[in-house]
């Protein structure tokens, strides 16, 4: 058998890998995609069941997926098992690494909030002196955001302030319910911009790589995909010292195999791409791989009740709807308690309230649940985590995963800036809720462990200086011109925004650059 050398090897099939496959194959480039897990078929692999038919009545299977707060017994089998692919951390620095290895990766399951970063993120250092600027600005990425928003059918209104740039949206113009109008009025002292939510609607109810990106690549006939291919190492040509393919192990048979390609594109998800580079001892002349791990603080928030909606009086006029409040701290004025800022997700809801909002039990609790039904008003926080050199990952020399691949040791923690931000967000939320006449039922100012937001970014940051960054502004390795990292690993700052649109836009931009360079025979 003669070995095929593919033009491009793409490792990972989520948003980043799917976009790379679509762009490259549409330009006539032959791609081989490897994905570490199987294809999920909802018709074959899932069925509706009552909780009592499951061994644990719907509770998360004890001892499994301890760090996936999102898991339940119903969905436990879609996440990466922590025993199969472990990672390590010091008990004082917990990290929730939430992973999906099914074909399509985490693009199969995401909240769909879709925002652009602004120059408050791209040029954060220029604005407040902290950290580093990205080597690109909104102007560079805007045309790609527009195309991504079209593909993902992002619904939104053109109502964003400069810190939440407008885009190419399927127009929405929800009429605010009275409860949200009251929130808007009460928020005025804080100079908040209360905007319509921005969500990827996708097609047929799904906004994933598997239905929006991979079919386009398949249609070109230039994409070959292998499932259950767990990549062990990127290989390097002995003569040129350039990456030339990879070694992988079949997930089920444990058979060791290898493939060859002229270019390697990593899209395995921030920390898996970084783990692979570290295990391959590749592209790290700067020593920066693994450093500057960031995400967003999630968990803080308040749950309120709108008194007028209680006792069966909730109406669609009064309740319902959702809004996004983009970062408002440190925009036009400087706030002394922390750098950067947080966004608020605001949701008014007619449904049932959670029992944990009442310090009552039995018949008294039942009566409260009935009384408060339909009156829920939630405010939750998404806050920027600053990029810090010391928040990093490295290879754990003691431990390997189910395929004998060394695992990651993660060392990251939040600091005063994040804790103060969370505290401020809850104080502000309570004050606005009070002013709006809502009753605050429960609140929490303790962030969930880092990683919980599933927005981990950084660890292969981009930059113009090869001594201080891993990738250039095209997501291309400074060390190897045929090595690209197109997922969230290239981020220089995290922002408060959900990163998906930015990952997609960066992958699209990097892939077009790569196709162009290949065309010019530069790569």
């Amino acid at each position, binding site marked *: 058998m003669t070995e095929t050398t593919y033009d491009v090897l793409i490792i990972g099939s989520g948003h980043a890998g799917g976009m790379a496959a679509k762009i490259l194959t549409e330009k006539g480039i032959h791609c081989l*995609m490897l994905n570490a*897990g*199987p*294809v*999920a078929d909802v018709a074959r*692999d*899932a*069925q*509706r*069941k*009552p*909780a*009592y038919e499951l061994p*644990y*009545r*719907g*509770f998360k299977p*004890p*001892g499994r997926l301890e760090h996936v707060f999102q898991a*339940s017994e*119903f*969905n436990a*089998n*879609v996440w990466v098992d922590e025993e*199969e692919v472990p990672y390590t951390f010091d008990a004082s620095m917990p990290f929730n690494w939430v992973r999906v290895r*099914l*074909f*399509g990766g985490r693009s199969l399951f995401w909240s769909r909030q879709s925002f652009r970063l602004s120059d408050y993120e791209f040029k954060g250092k220029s604005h407040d002196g902290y950290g580093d600027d990205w080597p690109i600005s909104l102007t560079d990425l805007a045309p790609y955001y527009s195309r991504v928003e079209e*593909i993902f059918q992002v619904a939104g209104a053109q109502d964003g302030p400069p810190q939440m740039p407008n885009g190419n949206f399927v127009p929405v113009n929800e009429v605010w319910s009275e409860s949200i109008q009251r929130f808007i009025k009460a928020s005025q002292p804080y100079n908040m911009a209360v905007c319509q939510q921005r969500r990827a609607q996708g*097609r047929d109810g799904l906004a994933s790589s598997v*239905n*929006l990106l*991979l*079919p386009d690549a*398949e249609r070109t006939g230039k994409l070959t*995909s*292998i*499932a*259950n*291919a767990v990549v062990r190492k990127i290989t390097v040509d002995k003569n040129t010292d350039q990456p030339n393919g990879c070694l992988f192990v*079949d*997930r*089920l*048979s444990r058979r060791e*195999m290898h493939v060859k390609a002229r270019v390697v594109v990593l899209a395995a998800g921030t920390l898996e791409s970084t783990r692979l580079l570290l295990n391959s001892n590749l592209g790290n002349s700067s020593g920066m791989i693994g450093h500057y791990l960031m995400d967003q603080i999630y*968990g803080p*928030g308040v749950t309120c009740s709108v008194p007028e909606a209680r006792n069966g009086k909730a109406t669609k006029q009064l309740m319902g709807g959702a809004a996004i409040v983009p970062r408002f701290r440190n925009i036009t004025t400087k706030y002394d308690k922390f750098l950067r800022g947080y966004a608020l997700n605001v949701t008014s809801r007619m449904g049932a309230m*959670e*029992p*944990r*909002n009442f*310090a009552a*039990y*039995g*018949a008294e609790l*039942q009566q409260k649940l009935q009384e408060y039904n339909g009156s829920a008003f939630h405010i939750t926080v998404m806050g920027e985590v600053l990029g810090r050199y010391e928040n990093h990952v490295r290879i754990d020399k003691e431990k390997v995963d*189910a395929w004998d691949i060394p695992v990651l040791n993660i060392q990251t923690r939040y600091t005063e800036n994040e804790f103060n931000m969370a505290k401020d967000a809850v104080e502000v939320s309570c004050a606005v809720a009070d002013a709006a006449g809502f009753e605050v039922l*429960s609140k*929490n100012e303790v962030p*969930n462990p880092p990683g919980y937001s599933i927005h981990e970014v950084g660890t292969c940051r981009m930059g113009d200086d090869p001594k201080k960054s891993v990738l250039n502004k095209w997501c291309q390795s400074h060390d190897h011109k045929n090595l690209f990292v197109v997922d969230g690993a290239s981020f220089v700052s995290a922002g408060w925004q959900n990163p998906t649109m930015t990952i997609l836009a960066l992958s699209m931009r990097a892939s077009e650059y790569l196709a162009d360079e290949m065309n010019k025979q530069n790569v």
Partner: protein
Amino acid sequence: MLRRDFVRAVVSVGLLPKALLAQQTANPAPPPPAPVPWTLGLNPKTPLPVTVAADGIAETEASFFTSSQLATFTRLCDLLLPPLDNKPGALQAGTPMFLDFLIGSSPTARKKVYSGGLDWLDAQSKTKYKLPFAQLNATQADALIKPWLRTWMTDHPPTEQHADFINIAHEDIRVATMNSKAWDDAGVAAGQDWVTGGLYWSPIEPDMAGLGATSTHLPPHVMAVPKAPHTIPSYPR
């Protein structure tokens, strides 16, 4: 078979090799191992046997809680979630024994919250009323429980000692009861569809010890999306 007959049979086989070969050539297909090959027969029309969950039919013995902890916990279950509005209470849903199983299977930290919490609650009761918690009336039990109830947000139950146990147990008792067969049966009796359900994902090509080796027949090349033209969605751009 008598030894004599066996010897005769062996001898006769030895004498007839040509006849055997001739027969093989004339009829090359070996005789089937059985009238029907082993795994053929199940087909889409095969009726599926109807089974029910063992929960609600079978009884279990407590294996984690001690007898006094179980007595305390049973009283706590009945107090926190009694039968209300035609719905079963925690006892009717078998919640104490289910949670004995769940907590007994759980990591140490969770076990400690329960065993420590139940012992503490019983000790409080004996100090205040000279009675085990299991024998307290509703007013007495309420006086011990109420001060520890808190309001809290998802993933952030109280961390304060005692409040952690009361609030975590309260939520577990409610979830275990509202996800029980008894709860669904009450719904069905009231004309509702079952309410405890959700989309359950089976293991997807599981890679578990023992299964890995037998799964090697699976083709390593799997298309992300089937190649049949009609199954690829086409969207206007």
